[in-house]
């Protein structure tokens, strides 16, 4: 195991993050505040409670998930796409490293960044609403797993993308709708019965449900199923990346 290579990639990626730490920190704070003003205050004042939790508090887990998923994807996809774009990918390809080392370095850094942003949002949210986290460890586990799995997905997108448009395509056309329709801002039980069934095909439902359970002990689907879903998703992404490195698809000629 070339642990020095992993550390070098991780460190290099994190340095890029720290160069722009201020905007990395400020943008989630502002966007979270906006969500609270719009959803929490304007809309929340018209909705009493969702399953015993104030609406403002109810949306906190969904809000964190929304950002962490989008950040995980964009961080990781950019991290691997950028070297491809400017040509510096050659040194990773010619270095004595295997796929796991490259992935741990890049995805680890991307996941760390989105975890940081998730925690910033959690901190910002706690300024607006009273939050008690029923299962802090489970909350952290769900958060970390989500950061990692979507960073893995972003990594795949970054390798797949041939231009900047494609880099935005999957997050915009697939992930954003899935996250918004995945119960970030509502409970599945609020939907008509048919849509409740259809929604269960959306993988993001399981993530948000499990995450929300860690906060409020209420969930749309069983927690075990949530864990299974996120574990399965991570495994699929890893398998795809392993295949990419084995065949050199869009990396090596």
């Amino acid at each position, binding site marked *: 195991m*070339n642990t*020095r*290579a992993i*550390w*070098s*990639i991780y*460190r*290099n990626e994190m*340095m*890029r993050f720290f*160069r722009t730490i201020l905007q990395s920190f400020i943008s989630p704070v502002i966007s979270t505040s906006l969500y609270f003003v719009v959803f929490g205050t304007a809309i929340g004042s018209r909705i009493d409670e969702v399953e015993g939790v104030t609406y403002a508090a109810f949306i906190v887990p969904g809000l964190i998930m929304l950002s962490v998923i989008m950040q995980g994807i964009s961080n990781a996809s950019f991290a691997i796409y950028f*070297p491809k774009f*400017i*040509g*510096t990918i*050659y*040194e*990773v*390809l*010619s*270095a*004595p*490293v*295997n796929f796991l080392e490259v992935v741990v370095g890049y995805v680890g850094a991307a996941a760390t960044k989105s975890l940081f942003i998730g925690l910033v949002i959690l901190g910002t949210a706690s300024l607006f609403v009273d939050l008690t986290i029923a299962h802090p460890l489970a909350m952290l586990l769900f958060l970390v797993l989500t950061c990692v799995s979507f960073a893995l997905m972003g990594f795949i997108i970054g390798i797949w993308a041939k231009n900047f448009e494609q880099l935005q395509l999957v997050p915009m056309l697939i992930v954003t709708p899935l996250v918004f329709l995945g119960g970030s801002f509502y409970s599945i039980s609020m939907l008509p019965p048919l849509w409740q069934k259809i929604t269960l095909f959306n993988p993001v439902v399981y993530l948000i449900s499990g995450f929300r359970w860690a906060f409020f002990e209420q969930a749309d689907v069983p927690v075990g199923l949530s864990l299974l879903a996120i574990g399965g998703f991570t495994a699929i992404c890893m398998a795809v990346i392993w295949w990419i490195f084995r065949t*050199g698809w869009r990396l*090596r*000629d």
Partner: protein
Amino acid sequence: MAPILQVRDLKKIYDGGFEALKGVTLDIEEGEIIALLGPNGAGKTTLISTLCGITVPTSGSATVGGHDIQTDYRAARSMIGLVPQEISLEPFEKVINTVRLTRGLFGKRRNDAYLDEVLGKLSLLDKRNQPTKELSGGMKRRVLIAKALSHEPRVLFLDEPTAGVDVALRKDMWEVVAELKKSGVTIILTTHYIEEAEAIADRIAVINKGEILLVEETATLMARLGRKRLTIELREPIQSVPETLSAYDLELSEGGTDLTYTYDTHQEKTGITGLLAELSAAGLKLRDISTRQDSLEEIFVGLVQEGAA
């Protein structure tokens, strides 16, 4: 001693069906400088990319220091430093950090003293903490060399090290390469500048259309293929070459004052004595005589044409 780099029947066929390497076989000895000489699209970069792990070969094999580049890629790649043709550097990264990154990628313990020494050799020490985007093109190329040397490789690939570099910088680069050779590094460089290969390489491998046409000591190649041209300046212009001189296949210049005779230096009889005697017999008076050796450029064009025929 076994060659440090052994390439055996290496083939690369791209997805589109383009055959970039048609079975390349090549041995490179430790400590030598070998130039891969060929026109654009000859397969030079594909060969280097394949040996470095950036391109996957279709068939054939290669070893670096006895380690197979595919089955034992970690050991093989650890020995290789690569300076790519395109200048590709992360623009906002400081010079020292980008060099540290490469060293780390190759699994070497951090050693800033060594890296500073490398930067010093490449006259980059005062640029150490500058973002790479602030450097000139020549300096950026030096940073790429510093990166390639950061992990103490035994084999260094330089892909077109002087492409797009002005004459002064090119000479500079040659000195850098000569310095590296002194430190015992084996250097494989690609170029389509013949004078570059001639100036710095111990051996030259001529490559065209994915095939190695020949591998020769630089001096031997010059001597073996070197043709000389003898130019005879006449005192009085003539209309046509006299019949008696037809055997020499002379070229007459436009003004009718210069006769050019081409001959092989390594032939037993160059025919010069005979020619001069015949000239005098034909009553032609000479003003001056000069000879010129073919440049590698001309030799090379000849080889490529031979290969195409």
